[in-house]
């Protein structure tokens, strides 16, 4: 088994220094030589660096991490991410292999090591920051681990002294079929692969995707899945260390040189797809319950689908309601109108049932009820594409999610046809986008098709710049842009008494 308490001193040697003398002894730091390119960041840095270095190194690392996070938001595959990150890594955080003979080897590794610990300080303060930091650091580690030279990688893994129980030849042969089936049919000859036996909790991601054989709580991990185990170990240790750092943080407060830098760093680590600000209202638009049917022609496909399901079944399951309620809130439908809308939409139930089971949730989403933090924050923000794409995929009977992602191709084509997208060229494009998992592209493709003339017009007139026409990554942005485009002729700020006529 692995020694969890890796930082603990061997109990037999604990008393070598008499406790009364301990405080006067010169601290003996571990000599920091970076033998490996990769680092588990187990030992904190001890040497002196300048304040400028402190800040610059941290900023460089932050750039890399922010970009990594952005990649994951854009749904890039690991290979795409690695390709995208390479130039950035080379620029800001280069790490050469030991065999490269580079003269800056020590400096590179020191920078990597120190910048990690600086950011650890900056991001240990809140749960949310810790989680995000640990996530992107893990991504960075994974990229580097994969890029590492096989021999050096093995040397590094050995140096970690993770003790994994090896599965004996006899047991391996006895379980040959199960092991092979778990590995998707590989290896062909069971002798070709070595297996480790570990508690399944140590490889949750392999378990989740059924890539290992499980028996009696032990996971049989093939050698080629080493990556996943090392990465899991990395994350586990980092999470633990961050937790400890956060507890130690209050004692750092007296230092008025570092704290401002650290605060500044953590503030700059903002989420790129920050929530859609629902304050941007559309002047002149009649956003009311009775007008939703008309407005729905400007909705993105996910919301149109919810709207159609709602009209068809007079009901939506709870994630559908959540996704749709927040979207409607985002387009500017106020709470009263929203309650009217849902009440009318659920026309098969009694007032009583509605009030009892649904009213509260709508009010909660608007921040009208609930705990302090919910009400102060005005409830929840409308979901972004990122959230819709990655969280809570729809289950049986559920209509939420992103049709481009969660529908089968045939059903997607039917839906597109039903909402009036019939151009075979566009449909073919969507089909390809879906195959390549470029769901944003597909959605934007449909948007451009549906607003072809208007987009051309604003481009020709020069009234809309590139910034206003960049890729849509939020359903509410889709609506806003669509609405503005379709109402170009109308004067903004017209009084919103009459229904706004929409074409299409």
């Amino acid at each position: 088994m692995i020694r969890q308490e890796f930082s603990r001193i061997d109990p037999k040697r604990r008393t070598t220094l008499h406790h009364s003398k301990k405080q006067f002894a010169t601290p003996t730091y571990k000599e920091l030589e970076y033998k490996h390119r990769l680092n588990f960041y187990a030992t904190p840095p001890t040497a002196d660096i300048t304040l400028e270095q402190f800040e610059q190194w941290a900023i460089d690392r932050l750039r890399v991490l922010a970009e990594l996070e952005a990649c994951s938001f854009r749904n890039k595959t690991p290979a795409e991410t690695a390709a995208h990150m390479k130039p950035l890594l080379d620029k800001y955080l280069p790490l050469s292999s030991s065999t490269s003979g580079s003269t800056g080897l020590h400096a590179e590794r020191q920078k990597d090591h120190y910048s990690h610990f600086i950011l650890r300080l900056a991001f240990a303060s809140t749960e949310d920051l810790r989680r995000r930091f640990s996530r992107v650091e893990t991504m960075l580690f994974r990229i580097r681990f994969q890029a590492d030279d096989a021999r050096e990688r093995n040397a590094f893994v050995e140096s970690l002294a993770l003790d994994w129980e090896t599965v004996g030849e006899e047991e391996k042969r006895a379980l040959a079929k199960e092991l092979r089936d778990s590995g998707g049919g590989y290896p062909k000859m069971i002798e070709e692969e070595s297996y480790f036996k570990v508690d399944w909790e140590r490889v949750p991601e392999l378990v989740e995707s059924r890539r290992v054989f499980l028996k009696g709580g032990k996971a049989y991990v093939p050698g080629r899945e080493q990556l996943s185990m090392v990465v899991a170990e990395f994350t586990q240790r980092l999470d633990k260390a961050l937790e400890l750092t956060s507890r130690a943080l209050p004692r750092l407060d007296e230092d008025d040189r570092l704290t401002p830098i650290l605060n500044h760093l953590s503030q700059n680590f903002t989420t790129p797809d920050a929530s859609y600000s629902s304050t941007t209202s559309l002047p002149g638009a009649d956003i009311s319950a009775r007008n939703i049917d008309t407005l729905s022609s400007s909705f993105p496909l996910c919301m149109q689908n919810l709207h159609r399901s709602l009209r068809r079944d007079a009901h939506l399951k709870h994630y559908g309601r959540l996704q749709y309620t927040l979207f409607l809130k985002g387009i500017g439908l106020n709470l009263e109108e929203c309650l009217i809308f849902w009440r009318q939409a659920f026309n098969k139930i009694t007032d009583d049932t509605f009030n009892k089971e649904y009213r509260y949730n709508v009010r909660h989403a608007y921040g009208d009820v609930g705990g302090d933090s919910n009400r102060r924050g005005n409830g929840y923000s409308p979901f972004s594409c990122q959230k819709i794409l990655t969280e809570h995929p729809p289950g049986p009977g559920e209509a939420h999610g992103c049709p481009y992602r969660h529908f089968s191709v045939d059903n997607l084509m039917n839906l597109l046809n039903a909402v009036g997208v019939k151009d075979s060229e566009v449909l073919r494009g969507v089909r390809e986008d879906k195959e390549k998992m470029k769901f944003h592209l597909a959605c934007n493709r449909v948007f451009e098709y549906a607003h072809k003339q208007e987009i051309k017009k604003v481009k020709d007139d020069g009234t809309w710049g590139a910034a206003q026409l960049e890729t849509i990554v939020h359903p509410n942005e889709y609506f806003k842009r669509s609405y503005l485009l379709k109402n170009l002729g109308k004067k903004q700020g017209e009084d919103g008494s009459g229904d706004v006529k929409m074409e299409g």
Partner: protein
Amino acid sequence: MTAEAETHDGEDLTAADTVTGEPETNHGISQDDDAADQDMTMANVGIEGDNVPDIKTESKSEVKLEDLFADIDSDEEFGSAKVKSQDIKPSSSPEAPSSPVHVGPSSRASDPEVMRSFYQRLFPWRYLFQWLNHSPTPTTDFGHREFAFTLQNDAYLRYQSFPTSDLLRKDILRLMPSRFEIGPVYSTNPRDRKTLRKSSAFKPIAKELCFDIDLTDYDDIRTCCDKANICNKCWQFITMAIKVVDVALREDFGFKHIMWVYSGRRGAHAWVCDKKARHMDDQKRRAIAGYLEVIKGGAQSGKKVNVKRPLHPHVARSLEILKSHFQSDILEDQDPWETDEKFDRLLQLLPDKTLNDALRKKWSSAPGRASTAKWADIDALAKTTQGLNATALREAKQDVVLEYTYPRLDIEVSKHLNHLLKSPFVVHPGTGRVCVPINTKHLEDFDPLGVPTVTELLGEIDEWTAPEEGEKEGKSIADWEKTSLKPYVEYFRSFVVSLMRDENDVKVKREREETDSMEF
């Protein structure tokens, strides 16, 4: 402000203490003179301002809006269970357990009086306590555990906690919830959560790993019933689900203490109580949920089963278990492809176009051909189809079997440490049935429609007469032993005993080590 019910220790409060909210929350139960002498029916639920006290909101950051919405769909089943309180015939002395229970034939499960008798005389408090406490003497495992009550007026009270089962029982008898749920053990006492200086000091640290299987998730493939209705035919879906999940949890993950509980109407819950399971974080829960999840996708996503080949041992084993169920319970009993529209669904799942055309022709010309015959037709016609990919067809057929039989888990329940789940042995307000544990040794014999209802049980107590020989003064017989609840409570007891034994083994060992080191 959020109105939260305060716990008053005195039970002398009258209905006058109850500040009822707007009528909408309060239907069904009139606060009339009937209730006035039942000092604790609705009293002292301090409802003010906000008419719904504390509906799952107490929102610290860990209560997500998603969680709020999460229960609603399943809550629909309680919609119709409202009863006018005129039906209540108050018992002469609620505290005297030996008095006969006056439950007229017209009384319904959700009557406060019926519930009172049930909680007072039948609910296995002691074993519930031992089950959650893991030891005979009170520990924080029980004391910091969250309970959530659904009151008779449908208000929902979260973050209740009790040092002992007696206090829990007392409060339940006072508030008379129609049901209550069990949440996680927190790092501090849930009642003190607002007094903490840092809200992060209050967080869930342990809960049983739970699974929820509900027949509504099978609505697109079950033909015998829909919505809240069930029969023994569709209960088979639950039976096979339990088999598949239970064996995976035991053999693959090595869990030992797994209790399945009938949810009272149309589903079952699993409580995995091993110490290791209780202390898992969300990531590990997600891993198990993902491992067990095979049916994916919503109403529009087409093929719902996409498993890679060769089949993972877990899927292969599940398929082996499910095959025979598919023949008898699906093809014969459900007859899922009876009509044109329905067999189209099957053809969508099969890969070969020529074969599909041939099948469609054959089936359209013979309306009403049984699903069993249709399933056999696939292989029969495949033999004569040119250029057919036999492997693809065999795999597609396996996927069909899985799609129609593999457990459909409500996965959100399993993924989160802080999810609440209805307690075993509470009464389902809609059906009046007790949420009894299901003995997996006799899984096939379990009949959801034969589970005793609360009114039946109370009747059985009255009818019970002491056996001639057993009339010894020293040994009193508990009320539950007089009823058909007995086997279920006994099963629960043996489950709890074996859980505590395993729990104690660890403790004893540790204590022994400690005492060893104390010796000089």
